């Protein structure tokens, strides 16, 4: 995601986030973080696209879309 501000007809770029930086924007992950079971365990190992970042220390760099 990228954020911009427009002031006096000038556009400034203010912010960008990637990978788990957009985690908070996905409401579903926030709900799963409050469910009784570990959301990451059920999916782990079924195929490479379902392994989630919480299981991997380098996971911050995995694109969020690859986790679904």
């Amino acid at each position, binding site marked *: 995601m990228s954020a911009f501000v427009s002031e006096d007809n000038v556009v400034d770029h203010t912010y960008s986030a990637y990978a788990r930086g957009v985690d908070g924007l996905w409401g579903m992950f926030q*709900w*799963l973080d409050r*469910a009784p079971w570990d959301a990451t365990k059920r999916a782990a190992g079924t195929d490479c696209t379902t392994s989630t970042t919480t299981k991997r220390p380098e996971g911050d760099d995995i694109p969020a879309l690859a986790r679904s």
Partner: protein
Amino acid sequence: MNHTVGTREEWLVARKQLLEREKELTRLSDELAEERRQLPRVRIDKPYTFETNEGTKTLAELFDGRSQLIVYHFMHGPNTPEGCLGCTFATDSFNGSEAHLNAHDVTFVLASRSPLETLNAYKRRMEWSIPWVSSGATDFNRDFSAWTEEDRRNGTGWNFGSPSGAWVDVVNDQELMALSAFVLEESVVYHTYSCYDRGTDALNSTWALLDRAPKGRAEGAGREWPLRHDEYAHAEATP
């Protein structure tokens, strides 16, 4: 608030510093999620019933064949017959997540004290798909805000007595806003987690987006906000 205008190089340096702080928060958030799941579970034996579009259901039946249940206690009841604005704002953000949650062994419902037909009418107006049940005259909503008899007497139950949550008047039977999580194992329902107030903040992705917008939440800016999503056009037409 004054903001500096910088070069791309200056922005990258500052942004990378911020990234380290964001990663700290992400990792802490993962640790917290694990700690939530380590809480002791409390067996629920009280025979709650709910009115649903599939008929009357027990708490165990609300799981709908899955092993986990999350209930969002939506403030729609005798003291908020129009439906709470904040809960409406939040539900706009939740709606649509239920298919993904269901496929992940989690049933997600809204529960309120208003009659089912009232809830259904509001749900149609808001164009939501999320299941919404009436806890009607049962103690369900109250029980999951006031945990002890003393809580019930002095009204300090909501958000475990945190002073910041004092705006909910439990003694005078005000509706409450909360999330409750349950697990079903061998036909027994256990309560696992509850949160209130800003504890539900992260569930609303509109807040998360505003936290990344240049001017943030801009609370106190004077404009009446949030409104129901079908009310903005009217509000703008009549300043």
